[in-house]
């Protein structure tokens, strides 16, 4: 087992490679192929205060070097996570990042309340790319005020558990949103969520997704993630960042680390290769050896901008 210890804020990881929310379930399905204890951590599928059914199908469309999805956060609810998934993850020695979602600030807080007393949660990612029912369905992550409200109240509910809001790249000023999240008590940031997109079948003239629009993921969005991580790391150099967006191999992961990410998450690549994250860990270790790097923190934000 490759050890590349890293400190993500207050969270100790055996290596900087996580798996992204919604691409790995809560670890059980990939378990025949992946020892979950070997991962830096698992950001589980987002959970809500009550089960959500999700959207009708088609929920997915493949696009050049990526895919669009509109799932609607189908999940069995926080109670199911706490009683069924979390004990399994703890038993299998996974480092657990719980991902929480909701349609109102109160819904986020109610999920956070249930997680506060649960055993075995290393950190919480806050999925604020959800429609805000109290603001004409605008996404929380698109508003400075809504971001601050959710993050502040979730942090208050979770007390000592580190909180990483996952920011959307579909905003005019990512720095302003990041500032709001940090001002409200975020311990770090997760960058980026999917990029808004849409695809149309020209034969039927209908959207390819039943939900009309969806989130673009995969290698197509990696340059956007690299830029976002770079921008936020430059603005807030001491804030721990989880970089994600199109990471399929170690080179991709290192790009995000050099841009300023302390940890990275492998997402869509898990669909193609459930073992992709393990390959990324080995690849980072090989790179460090090749470049004589003994501590991965030397690489965080180490992109050379001059000369």
């Amino acid at each position, binding site marked *: 087992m490759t050890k590349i210890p890293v400190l993500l804020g207050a969270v100790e990881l055996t290596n900087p490679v996580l798996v992204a929310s919604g691409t790995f379930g809560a670890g059980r399905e990939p378990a*025949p192929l992946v020892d979950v204890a070997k991962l830096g951590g698992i950001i589980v*599928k987002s959970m809500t205060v009550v089960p959500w*059914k999700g959207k009708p199908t088609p*929920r997915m469309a*493949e696009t050049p*070097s990526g895919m669009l999805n509109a*799932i609607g956060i189908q999940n069995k609810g926080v109670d199911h996570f706490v009683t069924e998934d979390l004990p399994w993850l703890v038993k299998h020695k996974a480092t657990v990042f719980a991902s929480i979602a909701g349609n109102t600030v109160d819904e986020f807080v109610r999920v956070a309340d249930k997680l506060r007393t649960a055993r075995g949660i290393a950190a919480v990612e806050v999925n604020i790319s959800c429609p805000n029912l109290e603001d004409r369905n605008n996404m929380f992550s698109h508003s400075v005020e809504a971001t601050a409200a959710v993050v502040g109240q979730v942090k208050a509910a979770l007390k000592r558990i580190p909180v990483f809001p996952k920011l959307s790249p579909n905003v005019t000023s990512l720095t302003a949103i990041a500032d709001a999240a940090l001002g409200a008590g975020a311990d770090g940031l997760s960058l980026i969520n999917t990029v808004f997109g849409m695809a149309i079948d020209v034969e039927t003239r209908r959207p390819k997704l039943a939900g009309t629009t969806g989130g673009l993921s*995969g290698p197509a969005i990696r340059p956007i993630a690299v830029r976002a991580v770079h921008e936020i790391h430059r603005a807030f150099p001491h804030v721990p960042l989880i970089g994600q967006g199109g990471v399929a191999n170690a080179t991709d992961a290192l790009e995000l680390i050099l841009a300023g990410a302390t940890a990275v998450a492998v997402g869509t690549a898990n669909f193609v290769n*459930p073992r992709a994250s393990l390959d990324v860990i080995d690849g980072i270790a090989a790179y460090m050896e090749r470049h004589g790097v003994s501590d991965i923190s030397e690489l965080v934000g180490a992109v050379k901008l001059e000369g």
Partner: protein
Amino acid sequence: MILATGEVLSHKKYGEHFHSLTIVAPEIGATIKPGQFVNVRCGDNRATILRRPFSVYRVHKRGGWASTIEIVFDIRGPGSKYLSELRGHATVDLLGPLGRGFQLPKRRAHCLLVGGGIGATPLFFLADELRNEGHRVDVILGARDVGLLLNPIEVRRLASVSVTTTEDGSAGERGRVTDVLAETIERCSTEVVYTCGPHPMLAAVARIATEHKIPVQVAVEELMACGYGVCMTCVMPLRRKAKKDESPEDAIVYARSCTEGPVFNGANVIWNGSDEVVASPDQSELTPASVPAARSALVDPDDEFAPPGN
């Protein structure tokens, strides 16, 4: 579920439209069951990143063709085109076996297999297994025209009664499989129906079988990204028995075709929820041409809502 590198043993064609790849993949061939599928990486094309799901046409467990799986497909996009150009000794990256296959009857039974177009693929593997266990196999094979019938000569060989339909009348009876289904059920004293094909066909077959009070297992095609239960894109709306204090709407669940399916109890599937919006043609290669369990004495009550066992 394993990740395996298979080696292409041979490529051939069935008729004008259908390509077949026989792939040496011992670990998958040894355990795969009818109705299960494999998810195949289609080259290193960075533009089309997702695997393509394929149901298995036949498995050769013994003899000179031992431990091979045969997939059959038509060309629907860049992924299937890539595969159609592979020849002997090429390697293919496989993830499988995936999903829950057909449940075989627990006692000797008269089984009717209803296949539409390329959707008939997994029914050949199923027919082999049913016959090995001593069940009677009858088949209705249908397609738009004669060129889209999958291997009708082989169907005549393995079925006790075989009925062919084409919509244009170019082979067999003019019409659809559902036009001859009720009379075939009566003629063959059918006790269980297995079907795979386009969703409107599955809906009609499930309705007719249910009217005859016969269990019907349908293998569905849904767009999928991962094939092993994490992406939640391939869900089918299912009706389950409402619990106390539960509205009928609450008793509708979205079940993953890749893990709870692709074989579902046809009586539980809510078809109008899914055939209103069908996959667009250029995306359709992301569906497995394959793959329910019925509540009867013949087959186990399903636990379609349970997580995969691991």
